[in-house]
């Protein structure tokens, strides 16, 4: 299920076009993580997604690598031997190095998240995280800078006007509550990609904690009823254990 979601995502959208490297060159990522097993599965997953991945287990080495190699993104653990992630990040930002950075942390506390974002991180992911969530965020970081912000989003026959906030499926206008609108916009901004529950809670609800409820599932179910009822092609799909994906699939 996960495989499908990711592999189909690369084709029609042609997302790589929007990332920094020119077409044909894979995005190059440095993963800095002291736990070898964690580093290993992150590397495996990112490679499977078509990224070129370097791994580093020590803070000093990581800083050296980041300063000498033009990476497209950094996945940076906070707790590291040698030099901690936040200090590496501050050092890079002090030297006007704007490489997108995704911070990882096992402490996962609000303060830490705020500290990380203040230090110049582009995103923050508390451990334990869903792998799909990590991949989605790394992609989003690479994309963020260059992607044009269109005002009308379209997936199959579903359109969403982000100015008038009107959603249409074919000829039918769909009534949405404020939160349903935000949820749909979030899903439509990365069609074909899995959106993890954590990202949805963060972006749609502005929750920086896991409320331990099935809130997201309930809203998605409701949204799905509004969007997919009466259509032969279903658009919203569940990726069990991870989140949701929006793509045309019968």
């Amino acid at each position, binding site marked *: 299920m996960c495989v499908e979601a990711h592999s189909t995502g690369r084709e029609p959208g042609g997302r790589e076009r929007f990332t920094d490297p020119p077409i044909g060159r894979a995005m190059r990522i440095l993963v800095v993580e002291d736990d070898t097993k964690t580093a290993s599965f992150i590397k495996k*997953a990112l490679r499977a997604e078509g990224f070129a991945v370097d791994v580093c287990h020590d803070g000093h080495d990581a800083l050296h690598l980041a300063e000498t190699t033009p990476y497209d993104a950094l996945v940076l653990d906070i707790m590291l031997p040698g030099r901690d992630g936040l200090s590496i990040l501050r050092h890079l930002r002090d030297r006007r190095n704007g490489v997108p950075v995704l911070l990882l942390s096992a402490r*996962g506390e609000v303060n830490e998240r705020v500290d990380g974002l203040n230090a110049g991180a582009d995103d923050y992911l508390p451990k334990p*995280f869903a792998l799909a969530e990590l991949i989605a965020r790394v992609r989003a970081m690479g994309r963020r800078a260059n992607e044009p912000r269109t005002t009308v989003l379209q997936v199959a026959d579903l359109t969403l006007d982000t100015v008038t906030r009107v959603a249409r499926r074919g000829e039918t206008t769909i009534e949405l509550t404020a939160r349903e609108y935000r949820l749909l916009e979030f899903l439509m901004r990365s069609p074909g990609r899995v959106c993890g529950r954590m990202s949805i809670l963060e972006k749609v609800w502005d929750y920086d*904690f896991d409320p331990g409820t*099935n809130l997201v599932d309930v809203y998605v179910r409701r949204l799905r009823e509004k969007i997919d009822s009466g259509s032969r092609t279903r658009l919203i799909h569940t990726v*069990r*254990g991870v989140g949701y994906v929006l793509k045309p699939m019968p």
Partner: protein
Amino acid sequence: MRIRTRLSLWYAAVMLASLSLMGALSYYQFVRQRSGEPGQQESLSGRGDQGRLPQRDERPDAARKSEPRAERPVGGGRRHGLFAEVMTILGRVGIPAMVMAVAGGWWLMRRSLAPVEALTRAVERTHERNLRQQLPRSGNGDELDRLTEVFNAMTARLDQSFQEIREFTLHASHELKTPLTVMQGEIETACREESLTDVQRDRLLSQLDEVQRLAKIVDGLSLLTKADAGQVSLARDPVQLDELLREAFEDMQHLGQSENLAVTLTACEPVVVHGDRHRLRQLLLNLADNAVKYNEPHGRATLSLRRVGPEAELVFTNTGPGLPRDQQSRVFERFFRGDASHSSAVEGSGLGLSIVEWIARAHGGSVLFESGAGTLTTVTVRLPVV
């Protein structure tokens, strides 16, 4: 009886006894002085006052023999006069002295026991979160000072133990996150294998669910442990509580849909509190979620926000099986999940209400839980309005 009263009474009794003894001795002294006059001694000793018996031997034989018998009745009248005189002196001087002594004793007692009262009040105020506050010592090296010192040493040891437990939990929850990350990552990686059969994939996904559940518990636990250790800092921004409640109301309607719950917002007065927006939303969502989870199909749930004097009063009620009265005091305990029927039917970490209580307290407020068989379950949160 209080120590102060008891000691004062004892003091008064000793004082009375010593005054009586002094009176008796003075009386005897007077009598002896007068016994130098002829005809006095024999009759006096003849009265058989036991206290004075041994002194009879001291009297010279010559004096005794020369006593004229005729003097006796006169001597008896004088003795009565003398006794009355001594009693008068004792009454005029002794009683005021007694009163002064008792009052003085009372005052002294009060003064010297004041540190005990202070110590009692300080000990009453001591709980597991303020063990680091040492009681003030007088520094004069007396017994009470020593007691304070010993008490301080004891709280320091307790604080150390609490600290160790907290650190243990903190480290444990932190250490658990790395293996959980690895497990979750590897299960997800395994799910991507295209050669998996549906049964194998289902099995892996079920494992993934459990790992995620465990991760949630570890998250909640580490949040509460950090809060215990005072390591979580909260924002102090003005928060429009009624807006947050309207959001929670919408979420609650959605959450209750599958059970056909009737959710109503009975009051929503505009109230601003100073606090942490995220945490207050967490509090509201936890309560909304509980009101839905512990409800019954086609049940009811209400929520309201009113301003009551200097406080914002949030009330969540829900129908449902409720909780026996004897278990209600335990709802804020970590991992308390009610009786067996509750635990198996409802999914959750058992930390929701503990987190609610922490958030309310951290904002200077309180939570009250009321329930009973066949009645509404009511949770009331009071937060100070600035």
